[in-house]
């Protein structure tokens, strides 16, 4: 009998769960084996076999592929739309072939994402599903991604403490066996309720920080040195618009351009425009600061940087620009992050003191004068 196909795919945050769900339904006879979790080794391995100054996600994907192949996979999955990402597939396939691996490469790149083509590709790979059933499988996958993103967003906004993350992980476990849209929906509602019950109202309004930047670096905790968890440890409430849901159902560029309010007048590729538009809205909402995270050399995000600098100056809102690559030292990164958080915290206290002063300025004023003498 023919050996069952073993399908593997690279990681991005915890999207392996919905992907596993999707492939499990598309290929009931195949084995789905997501690449082993990203470690330091993955990054080193990927960097060794990648072009010198390619963006980080390429290197992580590369490491994932090699580790996946080593773990026994014979079919690799890659998509590709967006800036440089659209061209990852062809080169990665070539590099892996040059390394001597024997595998089949499914690449749903720009030309391959039309429904008819996706259907044909999947059928030739041995999926027994008819078109409507396949559409159903995609609908379930999309719904699970939406549910996941919604809960993840809740966790981020509430600082991740109080066992919120445990509930979230339990949800991911439960998601693996959910097989229909209504089931996923009820699952999501139940866990969201649980989260709302758990998270108590915090004593003081927490610092609010928005995260913008290129999609992979912002979403994959390994590539951004666990930025979000570090912020959560300080009790910061994080807002991050970027997610796979956002990529799939985000607003069209025309609307985003309007939201950017003149800081950008044209789309600048990939999510550069989104970064600026989101930062503008954070500034309007009075956020304490914005963190702009990108992979080193990410051109769309670099296009956004001058606009972000202007925004930061005009709206008096600090923006921390972080550029991640495999050579960034964790200690240096932490120092900068801590300094940034200390700074925005001090700014908030200062503002608080200013408002107090203006409220009962008289007493405060006297007190101060006494102090200075």
């Amino acid at each position: 009998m023919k050996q069952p196909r073993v399908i593997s795919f690279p990681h991005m945050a915890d999207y392996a769960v919905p992907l596993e769900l999707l492939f499990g339904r598309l290929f009931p006879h195949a084995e789905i084996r997501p690449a082993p979790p990203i470690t330091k080794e993955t990054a080193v391995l990927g960097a060794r076999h990648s072009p010198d100054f390619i963006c980080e996600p390429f290197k992580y994907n590369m490491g994932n592929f090699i580790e996946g192949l080593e773990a026994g996979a014979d079919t690799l999955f890659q998509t590709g739309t967006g800036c440089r990402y659209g061209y990852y597939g062809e080169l990665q396939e070539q590099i892996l072939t040059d390394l001597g691996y024997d595998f089949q490469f499914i690449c749903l790149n720009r030309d391959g994402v039309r429904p008819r083509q996706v259907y044909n590709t999947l059928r030739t790979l041995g999926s027994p599903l008819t078109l409507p059933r396949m559409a159903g499988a995609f609908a379930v996958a999309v719904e699970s991604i939406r549910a996941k993103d919604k809960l993840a967003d809740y966790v981020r906004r509430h600082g991740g403490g109080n066992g919120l993350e445990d509930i979230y992980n339990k949800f991911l476990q439960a998601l693996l066996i959910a097989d229909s849209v209504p089931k996923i929906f009820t699952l999501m509602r139940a866990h969201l309720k649980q989260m709302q019950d758990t998270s108590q109202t915090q004593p003081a309004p927490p610092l609010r920080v928005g995260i913008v930047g290129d999609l992979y670096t912002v979403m994959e905790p390994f590539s951004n040195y666990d930025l979000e968890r570090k912020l959560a440890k300080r009790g910061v409430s994080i807002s991050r618009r970027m997610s796979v849901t956002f990529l799939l159902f985000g607003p069209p560029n025309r609307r985003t351009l309007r939201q950017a309010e003149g800081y950008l007048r044209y789309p600048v590729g990939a999510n550069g425009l989104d970064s600026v538009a989101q930062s503008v809205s954070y500034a309007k909402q009075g956020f304490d600061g914005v963190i702009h995270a990108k992979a080193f050399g990410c051109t769309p995000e670099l296009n956004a940087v001058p606009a972000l600098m202007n925004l930061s100056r005009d709206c008096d809102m600090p923006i921390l620009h972080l550029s991640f690559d495999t050579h960034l030292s964790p200690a240096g990164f932490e120092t900068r992050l801590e300094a940034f958080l200390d700074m925005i915290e001090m700014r908030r206290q200062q503002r608080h003191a200013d408002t107090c002063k203006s409220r009962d300025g008289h007493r405060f004023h006297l007190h101060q004068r006494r102090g200075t003498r």
Partner: protein
Amino acid sequence: MTTIGIPRALGYHRYGTLWETFFDELDIPFLVSPETNQAIQSQGVRHTVDESCLPLKLYMGHAAHLLDKCDALFVPRLERLGPRDEFCVRFWGLPDTVSATFQKAQLLTYELNSGLPGTHERAFLKLGRTLGKHPITTARAYARAQARQREVDFHRFSYARAELQATAPRILLAANPYITYDPYLGGTVARLIAHLGGVPIFTDAWNRTQCRAQAREISTDLYWTLNREMMGAVHQARSQVDGILLLTAFPCGSDCLANELILRRVNDVPVIQILLDEHQSHEGLTTRIESFMDMLEGRRRIG
């Protein structure tokens, strides 16, 4: 009368003649920045984010140089020529980068963004309207400008073809036009090759439409116009040259993918990749090109 400043960088090296003739025909005074030099480079480095690519740094240097010498900067936004023919996103963000960096600067721009036939013509008609010219005058100016640009391109092409007949080691200089024709970047390398007794041949001189079609022979998925043209030229010339020199600037996003593929798929000719950045030393460059030429010479003697 307003003077228009054209930075001699990025798009200029592809559409320079077109732009100059267009403004000439419309009787609009314009000023092209001088050829890149050390001062322009350091100006550019000062005005850009440190991890930007070298061509952008040079562009900003040129723009800064023109800033107080003209009334408006000419910064076109080149997005795409067709559904699979895109420019690097650097070009997409150029007007925004310039206006965010030099907030007082007046910008004159045109946009190539639909990828449909006739985009160029429409874009220039719109540009003419902004300049207050009659559409017929504009159309005539554009037609002349385009004819002139074609002439220049064809001249370059026939020159390159003639060079292929040379007996000295022929080296295909594969690079984006804004690197090839910048005397500070590609110029230095071409002079070095000529000085060492070789004949530099530019990929950008090849027939562009043909190149874009031929690029498929090396890569099927590539969608960056400039890289596709380069790749197509590499494919067409690979059997007629002695060596290929891939010239790229730090950290060029599209080159690093496309060149890697060329390095892996073009195996019948010696290929070398040379990376330029603003800390470039002339000696280092000389050593590497010298050793490449020596190697080619050695191959010739054996073969």
